[in-house]
């Protein structure tokens, strides 16, 4: 694990175990940084849910709780935004192939809403293959007074 502080803001670059404790940890650490960056309370709540959903995807669906696989968690801030990348070591997935959870036939589905919540709560979102294998979700939240659109 490494933690760095620099002029552009605090950075985190961690490898986490594939368990639910890591989900709580990543949410807590991101919220500490986001609060220091001035993100208001209600938006903090939304950022927290987005991080939780991305971490659960990595731990549960990507790494399938495999203790030999790690979750790659990075947070970077600059004066305009906070950027979070969460990667797994799983088999990968195509976000475009996911059913629309808000489609009439899916509204009463028990699962499948995580990616939708991330998209709703963050200002930027992208899924890509992780270098070295697996999938990574990249998320951006603009900071109050920043100039970045996402």
């Amino acid at each position: 694990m490494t933690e760095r502080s620099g002029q552009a803001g605090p950075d985190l670059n961690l490898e986490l175990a594939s368990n639910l404790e890591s989900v709580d940890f990543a949410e807590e650490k991101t919220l500490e940084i986001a609060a220091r960056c001035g993100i208001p309370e209600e938006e903090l709540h939304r950022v927290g849910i987005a991080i939780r959903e991305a971490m659960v995807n990595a731990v549960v669906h990507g790494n399938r709780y495999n203790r030999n696989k790690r979750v790659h968690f990075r947070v970077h801030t600059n004066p305009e935004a906070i950027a979070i990348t969460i990667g797994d070591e799983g088999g990968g997935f195509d976000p475009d192939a996911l059913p629309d959870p808000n489609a009439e036939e899916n509204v009463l589905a028990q699962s499948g809403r995580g990616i939708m919540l991330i998209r709703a709560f963050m200002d930027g979102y992208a899924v890509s293959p992780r270098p070295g294998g697996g999938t990574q979700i990249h998320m951006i939240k603009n900071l109050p007074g920043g100039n970045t659109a996402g």
Partner: protein
Amino acid sequence: MSVAVTTRRVGEVFVLDVSGRITLGEGSSILRESLRDCAATKQPKVLLNLEEVNYIDSSGIGELVSGYTNIQDAGGQLKLLKLTKRVRDLLQITKLYTVFEVFDDEATAIQSFR
């Protein structure tokens, strides 16, 4: 803080007072068990009081939906009481706000089951 569920009876209605965070793991499983107990009764009438719930993730939303459909399948009804702004927002984003009957007042909610 995880979730705590207290069940009480008001006439024929099970009122479940829920507090804490409904998230994947302990939080959602405690709620699942409470709703499963209700669904096992005859034509269950269930009112879920979410006044003390400030955090639900997609897994928690899944438990609400699952409870709703299980209780309907058992010939009963599940309704929601006193949503916090955060929970209301989540239900609106997921289009579930129009699926559930939602009340701000317990007495009115209890009456609606008759």
